[in-house]
């Protein structure tokens, strides 16, 4: 059993949140951790350390509701190689983003020139309302990076979207090339990370891998 408010449990929760943001996040849904209710760690011989978590999440666009989740995060041994294994179960429904997604999709598709933006939020913490969906899509993209690159001794947060550029595509997907700044809390480094993301209202976010 671990104190849920202390960092070792919080690090595992950050991985679970990153994973879920990637799977379910997007321009119309920004999932944030409201509270970590419970955390347990199990040391499995020859395999690694497994964290069992009970999380309470909220959507930043709909803060009156919360959603409960359970998650299992398995960090493998000698873990320089692979991403932690994450299983997550959401209790109940996340609110629908169909309308917001459609509106965003149509707005971007109808732009005369490809979208370009930088410093989201800006130095003073401001995000222009029209760029909030781009910001939330960056959360989804960063979720992938955080999930893939976390170890038991790291805790990543998205510090800022340094730059984002839309790339024209011939198919139905939207593509955004992000330069993200990730803050790693233990080393205190702020690391620039390039991520290319495809997004579509029905298909959700997918990170392009080289």
């Amino acid at each position, binding site marked *: 059993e671990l104190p849920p408010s202390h960092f070792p449990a919080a690090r595992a929760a950050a991985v679970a949140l990153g994973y879920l943001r990637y799977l379910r996040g997007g321009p119309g849904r920004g999932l944030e951790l409201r509270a970590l209710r419970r955390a347990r760690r199990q040391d499995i011989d020859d395999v690694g350390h497994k964290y069992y978590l009970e999380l309470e999440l909220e959507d930043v666009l709909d803060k009156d509701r919360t959603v409960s989740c359970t998650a299992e995060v398995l960090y493998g041994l000698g873990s320089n190689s692979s991403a932690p294994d994450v299983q997550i179960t959401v209790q109940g429904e996340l609110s629908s983003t169909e309308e917001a997604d459609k509106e965003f999709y149509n707005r971007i598709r109808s*732009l005369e020139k490809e979208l370009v933006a930088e410093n989201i*939020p800006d130095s*003073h913490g*401001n995000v222009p309302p029209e760029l909030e969906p781009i910001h939330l899509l960056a959360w989804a993209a960063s979720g992938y990076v955080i999930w893939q690159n976390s170890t038991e001794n790291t805790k990543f*947060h998205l510090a800022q979207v340094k730059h984002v550029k839309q790339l024209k595509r011939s198919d139905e997907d939207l593509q955004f090339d992000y330069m993200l700044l990730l803050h790693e809390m233990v*080393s205190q480094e702020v690391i620039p990370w390039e991520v290319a993301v495809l997004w579509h209202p029905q298909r959700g976010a997918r990170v392009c891998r080289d």
Partner: protein
Amino acid sequence: MWALWVLIGAASVSAHLQNLSFDGQKVFRMIPQNDEQVEILNFLASIMEVDFWQPDSVTLVRPKMQVDFRIEAEKSFDVEDLLKESGMEYQVLIDNLQAALDAQLDSTTHTASHSYQKYNNWDTIAAWTADIAAQNPDLVSRSVIGETYEGRPMYLLKMGKSGPNKKAIFMDCGFHAREWISPAFCQWFVKEAVETYGKDTVMTTLLDKLDFYVLPVVNIDGYVYTWTKNRMWRKTRSKNANSICIGTDPNRNFDAGWCTVGASKSPCAATYCGSAPESEKETKALADFIREHLSTIKAYLTIHSYSQLLLFPYSYTYDLPPDYQELNSIASAASKELASLHNTTYTYGPAAKTIYPASGGSDDWAYDQGIKYAFTFELRDTGRYGFLLPESQIKPTCEETLLAVKYIANYVLEHLY
């Protein structure tokens, strides 16, 4: 929608702006002396575009009334000729309206005025330290405790009603350059102290019985760098021998288990411990001041962000400090006080176990010097905005934190040693 459009088309934006240029336009001021001269102005308004600033329209012009009006660039010479020919006295109030507008824009960015609900740049904060001391001479005095690497004076504010044998609480902000909410809190604290002294019983008692040393920005060079070059900078800006990398982590630079754990020996790392304890001018100045006033300083508070934590020693070891029980109860109560305002949850505990071990911290050093009540605050938020906390959160963050700080200060006052 328009904001997106602006971001996309730089060329289209500049074309739009040219239509609104006031380049070369003049503003005249004159006092028509009689009906004849009023007629001349009427005539002028009938043959060209005249924008009356004062009064609103030519129909309101009367003799002896001061009249200000704007004329477009090409017509201004004709107007001057006409005014001269008719012997009317006039002055050119603004010779080039566009230049005047540009100058006004420049002045607001360079000499920005201080606000407790905005992030202030270093020049603004420095000026504020002088002003606040000058405006409240019996409560605030300013001194310089040293110089930064780049030669900037480190201002310290001493707050409190003067009295004999007073004990003190030392509080600093801005150790890490990118943690902008931290200096904002020190400024807020000072404001609350001067504004509520004599009105709030707790604050009045605190300032009567204790002194507060407030260091609004420790790492000034770093702070300036986050305003001018890199918003995510953390360390000082000192050069490192044999490296192209700049800066030392000031909160790994104190003589407390120095560079043993949670700090890096590499100058390029964000947690570089420095070439030696107190290698940085800023940390040495802080440590020297505390050493010189050790007999009077009874508590040490250091303000950081982010994560919403209230930590106490030790960071450099998992061992618990001798005063663990007491520190833990204080932290527990202070966190409760903080949460009472906006429900903001803080986690508290001994630093190594609560977050991670890290050596060379100023709070550990202060504690080992004998300052029993040593706390580190990590302010809002928990990662949504992180270092880029929106200005709209400055007030609520500072208000709730103040409750915790006042609680701790009051406890210290009631448990002086």
